């Protein structure tokens, strides 16, 4: 098979935290002990390591935008290395070089770095490590990810408020829990504004295939969807919606340019909202990595929504703002029971809320999703 397919898939896997669930599970089994506060030796020297090209139109680009913000906030220059393969030898070589040159805060940005970064953390106990969408944690290593489903629920509400057909569509990459919860939250959000709304969900089984993404979006539009949301990075999904005069929702970075007329909002990452305070804490002293990694919500604005365009009616915007406030206050959760699976069985009873363990193991669609979860992911 083609090398490019594998490298591309691998390159984007960092965005999915596919097995963060597994990692969390294993961490529980291993019974990781809370460590003493980490003590940084010497002046801070920070480096970011990327698994693919920085300007990838999505994950890495969002991460690099955060790096610039961290530089501004801390007034330091941050070194970067891009396209460092997600394998132990290549990653270790990069870390070794940085450590030799006196770097003591190293930020990995990939799920695929989970294992190598743990090894590095063990090898260099005096260096602080952070890893986006990783699965490993230690006394000097913290993995972090955002509760993207909170933002997608609100985006779903926007979609439901403008949908005339009651059908919206979401384009996704692979059936992993971090993607599945986006789809489910998006669907439930749409239903909150338009009872009985349905969401077509299609996995392209690829992270990088604009041709397929455009065509898949057209297929959803042909089936009556009038809002297309992308959980991927290519512009062609939004293009397809714009051409048919339908609405679109972007992901990762501001995608307004791809559908200037039909865009509702973009679900974006602002990793600096996690990274700046965390790195500040590392420098100031008193940093203790979370035992199971940091899993930050929309209240931190680490995952956020761009301001809604005029396409979203004012009263809907007000209702979405209310819901957002409730989520931030902790009085509401997108997965508050009753959560009913696609097949009609109850996943979360009324009065209960889906816990993190269940979230990381999410392998089903909720009622109202049109689409099938591939058998392999169950």
């Amino acid at each position, binding site marked *: 098979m083609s090398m490019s397919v594998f490298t591309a898939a691998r390159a984007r896997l960092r965005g999915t935290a596919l097995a963060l669930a597994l990692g969390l599970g294993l961490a529980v089994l291993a019974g990781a002990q809370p460590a003493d506060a980490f003590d940084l030796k010497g002046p801070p020297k920070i480096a970011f390591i990327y698994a693919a090209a920085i300007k990838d*139109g999505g994950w890495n680009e969002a991460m690099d935008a955060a790096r610039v913000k961290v530089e501004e906030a801390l007034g330091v220059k941050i070194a970067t290395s891009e396209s460092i393969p997600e394998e132990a030898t290549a990653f270790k070589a990069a870390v070794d070089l940085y450590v030799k040159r006196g770097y003591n805060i190293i930020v990995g940005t990939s799920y695929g770095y989970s294992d190598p970064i743990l090894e590095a953390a063990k090898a260099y106990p005096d260096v602080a490590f952070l890893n986006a969408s990783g699965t490993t944690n230690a006394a000097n290593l913290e993995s972090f990810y955002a509760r993207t489903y909170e933002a997608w629920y609100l985006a779903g509400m926007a979609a439901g408020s403008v949908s005339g057909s009651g059908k919206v569509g979401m384009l996704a990459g692979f059936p992993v829990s971090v993607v599945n919860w986006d789809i489910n939250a998006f669907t439930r959000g749409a239903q909150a504004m338009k009872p009985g709304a349905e969401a077509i969900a299609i996995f392209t089984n690829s992270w990088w295939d604009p041709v397929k993404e455009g065509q898949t979006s057209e297929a959803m539009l042909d089936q009556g969807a009038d809002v297309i949301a992308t959980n991927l990075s290519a512009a062609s999904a939004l293009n397809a919606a714009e051409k048919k005069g339908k609405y679109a929702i972007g992901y990762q970075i501001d995608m307004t340019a791809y559908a200037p007329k039909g865009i509702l909002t973009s679900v974006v990452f602002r990793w600096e909202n996690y990274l700046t305070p965390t790195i500040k804490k590392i420098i100031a002293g008193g940093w203790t990595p979370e035992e199971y990694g940091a899993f930050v919500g929309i209240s931190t604005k680490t995952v956020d929504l761009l301001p809604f365009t005029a396409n979203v009616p004012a009263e809907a915007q007000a209702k979405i703002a209310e819901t957002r406030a409730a989520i931030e206050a902790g009085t509401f959760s997108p997965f508050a029971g009753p959560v009913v699976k696609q097949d009609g069985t109850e996943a979360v009873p009324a009065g209960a809320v889906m816990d993190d363990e269940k979230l990381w193991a999410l392998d089903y669609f909720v009622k109202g999703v049109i689409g099938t979860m591939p058998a392999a992911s169950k």
Partner: protein
Amino acid sequence: MIDFLVTWLASTPTFATPILLACIGLIVCERAGVLNLGAEGMMAVGAMAAVAVTLTGGNPWTGILAGIGAGALLGLVFGLAVVVLRADQILAGLAAVAIGLGAAGLIGKPYVHTTVTGIARLDIPGLSDLPVVGPILFAQDPFVYIAVALALLGWFYLMRTRAGLRLRATGEDPGAADVAGVDVQLTQLAAVIVSGAACGLAGAYLSVVASQVWVEGMVAGRGWIAIGLVIFARWSPPRAILGALIFGGADALTPRLQAVGADVPAYLMMMLPYLLTIAVLAVPALLRRGGNAEPASLGLPFLRQDRR
């Protein structure tokens, strides 16, 4: 139901055209006796160059030309390696893939994720509004028709012209062709460049016409499918049209079935082109007749001194 069939069939050419365009070039190349495994890389540089030129002051058509040129250039490099320097064709082909993907990623950096105005659909007046056949046959982009025309032209060239005969002779028995006065190296080099240009065009189609954006790795294995299609078509351009429609139709069907909520074995569908290719290779062998139409000297370097 009829709507579903129409929209499905109308979206099939978008998937079929790039693999058909690449396949026609590869057939010419293999008929001349050179196995070009570099298709994926040549498509990658074509896709990148087309968007780069379109974005830097060109228009989509000059972009397409640039894509063809970039593919041909990598074809030339590969051709010099295998025809003139007689490098191993399989290794040189794989190297061409790596070079193409790498060069596209490196040079294309400033152009990634930037949308371009593509080439509009060509609605044939009077015919495109016909029910059912209109959207399927008469409302496609120009390259769909160009690809079909090129396939027929390729067949005519290979089977009905003297130059085509010389080229086929080169692929079957370069020694005999050499005796008959054919310049084997020049013929092979030209064929390799043509295949590079065709792959470049296919890549340009993917970026400028089909998705109107370039991202690294967007060829996504289509070059390998085109190589499979050469075998599936048994080295015949018209059969490649049929094969491309089958491969493209399957590709187009998956998202459409998923959109109506059907449980599609997506991974099986992705394997389909390769399974069909193996079947086409295996069937003549199992039937013990005909052979598989493979040019007899495919993949063998020609050394005049070794001529028997």
